[in-house]
């Protein structure tokens, strides 16, 4: 097995009484890795800790062998890492070419190299003639691509991307995901993609880490996580679904109700028995109008992981009368 790109041990970060990161261990493998979590789960805090922009309350981390908490190592970390921040970040009054070349020079590139490199990465993110215009007039999509370009300016070994598709329209989002996918899968870059958009991570990453309330609640290869949980059956019924759910729970099956009234049955292995489902429906006195199988998606993995830890009253909560199954109500 290849060595971890990022290694974290007992990481705790407190803001006053709030524990943003609640003491977890994590080893991030090489390649594109998604860092998933609901808002406020500690994703951005973790990225800033990895860059040494924040000091941990407890614990330690290494990024490509350097410790961001050590003063000298911190600068080394920033030399081998490219960071794309979440918010609008620009150097005042500059054009894209000036911004990228200036930041490349600050990282240590020679003047000529910095200018050549700036043009290369701006070509790559497809900022054409706009690169000579002041950034103030850029659209959100252009600003996001520019932020990616500046992160790539020194050809870092690891890219930390914080919500790269934030605020983008579908076309811009597709462009950004194409770039991230190319960097991770074709160019072999190590990427830690921080997002709350599951589709983005599912499309671009091979490995996923789910954070919730400052703890790692799930991690592993996307293929393993989605396959290991068995099959998912989508069922629509006529009649009282509560009785059907009770019947399913009694049979030891996990169920999830969607906002649209669709019922999902989590089958424990990859080969669901449809006849058994029909049998249980008959016993519950309901008629199945539609039954189809869906492979467990990252969304299900995420909901399960986050739902298991979600506090009462949040978007996911255990609510089954029998107490045997976990009923997750998804937001519409």
């Amino acid at each position: 097995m290849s060595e971890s790109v990022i290694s974290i041990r007992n990481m705790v970060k407190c803001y006053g009484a709030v524990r943003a990161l609640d003491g977890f261990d994590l080893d991030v493998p090489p390649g594109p890795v998604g860092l998933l979590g609901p808002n406020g789960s500690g994703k951005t805090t973790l990225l800033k800790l990895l860059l040494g922009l924040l000091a941990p309350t407890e614990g330690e981390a290494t990024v490509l062998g350097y410790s961001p908490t050590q003063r000298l190592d911190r600068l080394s970390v920033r030399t081998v890492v490219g960071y794309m921040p979440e918010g609008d970040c620009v150097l005042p009054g500059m054009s894209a070419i000036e911004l990228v070349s200036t930041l490349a020079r600050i990282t240590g590139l020679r003047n000529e190299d910095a200018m050549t490199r700036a043009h290369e990465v701006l070509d790559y993110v497809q900022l054409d003639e706009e690169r000579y215009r002041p950034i103030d007039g850029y659209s959100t999509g252009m600003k996001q691509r520019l932020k990616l370009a500046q992160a790539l300016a020194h050809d870092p070994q690891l890219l930390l991307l914080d919500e790269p598709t934030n605020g983008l329209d579908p076309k811009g989002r597709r462009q950004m995901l194409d770039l991230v996918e190319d960097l991770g899968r074709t160019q072999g870059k190590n990427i830690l993609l921080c997002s709350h958009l599951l589709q983005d991570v599912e499309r671009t990453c091979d490995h996923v880490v789910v954070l919730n309330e400052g703890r790692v609640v799930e991690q592993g290869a996307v293929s393993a996580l989605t396959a290991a949980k068995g099959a998912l059956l989508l069922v629509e019924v006529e009649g009282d679904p509560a009785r059907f759910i009770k019947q399913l729970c009694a049979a030891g099956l996990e169920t999830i109700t969607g906002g649209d009234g669709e019922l999902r049955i989590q089958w424990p292995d990859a080969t669901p028995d449809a006849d058994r489902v029909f049998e249980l429906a008959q016993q519950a006195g309901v008629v199945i109008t539609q039954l189809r199988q869906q492979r467990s998606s990252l969304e299900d993995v995420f909901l399960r992981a986050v739902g298991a830890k979600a506090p009462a009253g949040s978007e996911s909560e255990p609510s089954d009368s029998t107490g045997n199954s976990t009923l997750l109500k998804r937001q519409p």
Partner: protein
Amino acid sequence: MRASTHTEIYRPFTGSLREHPHRWLTIGASSVRQGFKRKLPALLLFTPVAIGCVIACFRVYFRFQLLSGELVNINSPGAAGITMMVTETLGDVVANIITYTQSMAFFSLMIVAWYGAGLIAEDRRLGANLLYFSRPISRLDYLLGKGSGTFAFGFLALTLPCLLVCSVAAFTSPEWSFLIEEWPSILKVILFSGIWVSTITLLVLTISSLVGRKSHALIGIIGTIVLSGGVSAVLSHLLRENAFSLLNLFENFERLGEWMFDRWDSDREVTIGQTLAALGGFWAICLLTLAARVRKLEVVA
């Protein structure tokens, strides 16, 4: 529809990084470049400085020319009288240079304030601190970079014109006499202007680090100067205690100038030691504030 070209592929960087890249110098140079992008403010702010410099150069030039007798024949009785009168009006060359240096202090403050006010404030407003500090720079690099950028404007506004006037004096003086006899004065002029520019650079950056916009920083700088001068004058008048003049930055520099150029007014109640202590205190407050604020820029919550 847009055609794909060969340029849209990712190219790994094949060069190497510099071992000692002087990152602060890049930040400083970038600040100067950005400052001079807008031509109108540069024209308005540097025109009075340029005019003042030209006038000072001509005064120095004429004085040496008159003394050397190249402009008029000083052997003729009428001309000698006129020459004496004009040279007296023009005054001593060193005095001219000192007067010029002190009179340009206000303009240099305006220039440094205009160009330096937004350097930290706008970085924070636009999130540029995250871009800077995700690079391998220390807080000292950042501070030196912003400081050198601001100092450069002050240097262009005050120190460079002073050097020009001194150069004219050196070139026009007979047998390089000005350079040979008055070199300590030249060094003092450079030192005095350097201290002044450094002090106002610190003031401007400190206020810039405390606020979130360039306009607020400009108001803060002017407010600090006016308020400290006003409070100092009112307290000195009301309490009849001249020590309050130590609160006034301009008065402190007036005293420092008098002391450096051996023109100390013996009637002054405030000593040079007190003046230096006041300036030292001002520097300490500014540096401590800047250190704390720049730390906050890097360590972002």
